[in-house]
């Protein structure tokens, strides 16, 4: 056997032959002259085709009433209703179910033998169908509805297996409902590539609703003709079976086949496919009932799909509003978006997603690697101008994505901000990975001798080629969903930005107040302070004789307290001014800067004995020399202050490639216990009582830290109590 779709000798709708379980006549109107006749007329009537060809039908049909009935059908008065015919021949009286209809090639009459002209069975089916109708309408969901349809068709037909296929946009089919003999393996959920049902076959289904093949292996019967072209048998119920179809179903072990079209909006939505594993004949009445059921189901299908879509949309909307709600309340925006993960994915029915805020990318579900996503966004930045972009074949436009087709053959990209790099990306896998395909192409549908024919095996391969590097398409409502999310996010972000602006405004105001406070502290508060100091001094100078020792001591205390207050206010002012300071950066030789600091230190304390060690020449760096001078002065004077022995201080630096230079000031002082290593940098935090080590204000190190941080650097200390301390700091 060698069948090839491209090598079809005859088109599928005009094969020039019929199935053997009935007879077919092609007639010329108005006298109904026989133009073609099936070659099995002998089997049923004991006549040869030549006995009929080119003769009027009345020659065959004795009863004039029957001829009139056929005529009525042809003229459309009693269209497509089943006719009960009887034909008397030498062998006796034969009963037939007949249909007659017009085609471009002539009138066609099809006859199927029956045992008796009894019509009662039809009424019982009619009653059954009426019952089914009310059940169908009461089902609530689409899957439940389809399952019911399958079960009712099986009850009507008694077939081993009844399935409902649903076709997707690409024409691939999925078994969405099934009822079957208990011992058969289930096909529910399996997918079949679009090529399993060729386009011409689909068109035929759309036109005549029903296809019945009682015995797929029965040899077909040719039509005998007087030099006429093969007639169009699109509407024929007896049309012979295409060799492909035979092969396909034989491979599946199917012997008898019934398929009923499910139509929605003039499109073939799916099929009710019935399989029997031995030949099985159905009477015309049963088939009409099935067809009727199919038509009813098709009508209801539109309803159920609308309901399903509506409930899907409602579900999606509630998902959306839930997501938006949590985004608008969350402090961490990304967390709210990606937790719980399935929510973000359900929004567009994706299997993976990436949320990109600037350089921060969060991945959810099945996605390409972080690096791959980053490169993809880089590409999108330059290549995608739309705020919403979707493709079901990313590899076609972005070649590197071939590497991660298994997670992202489909991309839905949402740009949230035009200015910033804010994106949400959703991914879908290559369609081959998505679903369970019927049959392993490598085993179940193997064809012999490497034949080049079209077969399920080949069709699967061919189909694989067509869906490679593609995902299931993004539906318009899924795109809408992404767009809605963007609108919501922008709303939330805008609100947050407003809040932030307000906070900034308040912050600015409180900063101004703080500056005013610092000014008042430095000038206005100092004035009464000076008064206290000066008048105490006058008292001491002019009236000391009138006071006893205690009194003098009290006045001394007042003087020293007011001095101390001035020191504290000065420190506070210095720090508050630093808060607003602009750095005056310039390239500075630290050696020169340090020499100045040392000179000032010794000049202000001529009594001081301290050696300054500089092991190697310091580098030249960019900094604010005035402020850095203050750093060195403060650290050196601390080294001097907190020291019980012969003090020395060492100033040096460490360099590591790629990292900022680290300067250090090391001393041989009293050291600092580990638990104070951080607190010493806090404002007004001292470690020692007032009367020890010169009674500092606790502002020096806070000022040093502020200066270092203004330069973008860090400061820390290492020390062993009793063995000195080393302050390290960087200025970049």
């Amino acid at each position, binding site marked *: 056997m060698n069948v090839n779709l491209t090598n079809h000798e005859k088109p599928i709708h005009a094969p020039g032959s019929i199935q053997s379980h009935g007879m077919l006549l092609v007639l010329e109107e108005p006298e109904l002259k026989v133009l073609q006749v099936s070659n099995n007329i002998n089997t049923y009537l004991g006549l040869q085709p030549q006995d009929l060809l080119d003769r009027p039908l009345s020659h065959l049909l004795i009863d004039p009433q029957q001829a009139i009935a056929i005529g009525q059908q042809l003229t459309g008065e009693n269209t497509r209703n089943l006719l009960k015919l009887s034909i008397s021949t030498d062998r006796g009286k034969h009963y037939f179910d007949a249909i007659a209809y017009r085609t471009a090639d002539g009138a066609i009459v099809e006859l199927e033998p029956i045992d008796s002209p009894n019509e009662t069975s039809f009424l019982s089916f009619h009653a059954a169908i009426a019952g089914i109708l009310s059940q169908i309408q009461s089902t609530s969901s689409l899957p439940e509805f389809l399952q019911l349809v399958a079960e009712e068709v099986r009850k009507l037909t008694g077939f081993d297996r009844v399935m409902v296929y649903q076709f997707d946009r690409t024409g691939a089919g999925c078994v969405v409902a099934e009822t079957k003999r208990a011992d058969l393996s289930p096909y529910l959920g399996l997918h079949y590539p679009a090529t399993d049902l060729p386009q011409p076959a689909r068109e035929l289904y759309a036109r005549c609703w029903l296809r019945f093949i009682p015995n797929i292996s029965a040899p077909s019967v040719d039509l005998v003709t007087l030099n006429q072209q093969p007639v169009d048998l699109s509407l024929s119920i007896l049309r012979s079976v295409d060799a492909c179809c035979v092969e396909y179903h034989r491979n599946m072990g199917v012997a008898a086949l019934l398929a009923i079209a499910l139509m929605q909006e003039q499109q073939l939505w799916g099929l009710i496919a019935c399989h029997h594993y031995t030949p099985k004949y159905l009477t015309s009445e049963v088939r009409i009932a099935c067809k009727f059921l199919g038509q009813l189901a098709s009508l209801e299908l539109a309803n159920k799909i609308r309901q399903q879509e509506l409930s899907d949309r409602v579900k999606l909307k509630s998902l959306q509003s839930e997501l938006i709600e949590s985004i608008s309340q969350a402090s961490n925006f990304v967390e709210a978006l990606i937790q719980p993960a399935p929510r973000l994915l359900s929004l567009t029915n994706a299997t993976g997603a990436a949320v990109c805020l600037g350089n921060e990318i969060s991945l959810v579900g099945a996605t390409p690697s972080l690096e791959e996503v980053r490169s993809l966004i880089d590409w999108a930045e330059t290549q995608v101008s739309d705020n919403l972009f979707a493709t079901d074949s990313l590899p076609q436009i972005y070649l590197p994505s071939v590497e991660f087709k298994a997670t992202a053959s489909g991309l839905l990209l949402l740009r949230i901000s035009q200015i910033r790099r804010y994106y949400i990306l959703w991914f879908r896998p290559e369609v081959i990975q998505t679903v369970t395909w019927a049959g392993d192409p490598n085993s179940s549908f193997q064809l012999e001798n490497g034949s080049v024919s079209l077969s399920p095996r080949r069709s699967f391969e061919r189909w694989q080629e067509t869906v490679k590097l593609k995902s299931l398409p993004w539906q318009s409502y899924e795109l809408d969903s992404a767009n809605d999310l963007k609108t919501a996010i922008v709303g939330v972000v805008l609100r947050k930005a407003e809040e932030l602006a307000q906070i900034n405004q308040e912050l600015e105001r409180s900063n101004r107040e703080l500056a005013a406070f610092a000014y008042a502290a430095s000038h206005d508060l100092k004035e009464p302070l000076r008064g206290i100091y000066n008048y105490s001094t006058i008292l001491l100078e002019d009236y000391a004789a009138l006071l006893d020792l205690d009194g003098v001591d009290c006045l001394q*205390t007042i003087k020293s*307290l007011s001095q101390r207050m001035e020191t504290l206010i000065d420190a506070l002012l210095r720090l508050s001014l630093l808060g607003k300071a602009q750095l005056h950066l310039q390239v500075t030789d630290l050696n020169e800067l340090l020499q100045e600091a040392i000179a000032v230190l010794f000049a202000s304390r001529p009594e001081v004995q301290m050696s300054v060690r500089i092991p190697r020449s310091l580098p030249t760096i960019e900094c604010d020399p005035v402020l850095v001078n203050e750093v060195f002065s403060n650290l050196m004077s601390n080294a001097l202050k907190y020291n019980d022995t012969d003090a020395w201080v060492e100033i040096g630096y460490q360099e590591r490639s790629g990292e900022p230079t680290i300067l250090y000031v090391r001393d041989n002082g009293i050291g600092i*216990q580990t*638990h*104070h290593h951080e*607190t010493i940098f806090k404002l007004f*935090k*001292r*470690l*020692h*009582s*007032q*009367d*020890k080590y010169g009674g500092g204000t*606790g502002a020096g190190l806070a000022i040093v830290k502020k200066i270092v941080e203004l330069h973008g650097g860090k400061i820390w200390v290492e020390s062993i109590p009793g063995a000195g301390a080393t302050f390290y700091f960087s200025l970049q």
Partner: protein
Amino acid sequence: MTTRPNEPLLVAEDSNEDFKMLQRLMRRMTVQNPIYRCKTGDEVLDFLYQAGDYQSPAQAPRPSVILLDLNLPGIDGRDVLERLKQDISFKEIPIVVFTTSANPKDIELCYQRGANGYLIKPMDSSELEKTVQAFVEYWLEANTPPSVVS
């Protein structure tokens, strides 16, 4: 009113002026109890654990009450409070906070950490006198501290 003149009072206070004022007021109230003073938080801990400069029991007897300033140099008064109240051997010693801070957060924090009283140092000297008076009357005279371990 009975006084227990031998029970030592420990004052944690870094300000010499404030301590002098306190001494002066107590002298006026004829407080007989020996008063010990620590100037930093670290010193308070050394005193109680008899470490550092306070190695001998004679230098650092177990106080019956501690008057604690919050803003101490070194280890902060808040931390001293927490350390002592978490140590089973010191948690029974009444600790009265004595500070300039009227911050409700400080007050709440101190009571949470087990302070037995919270006194605010007033600016006005007669108010200060009343506060110190109240402290002396309650903590040094009326109140019975847990028996001192010898």
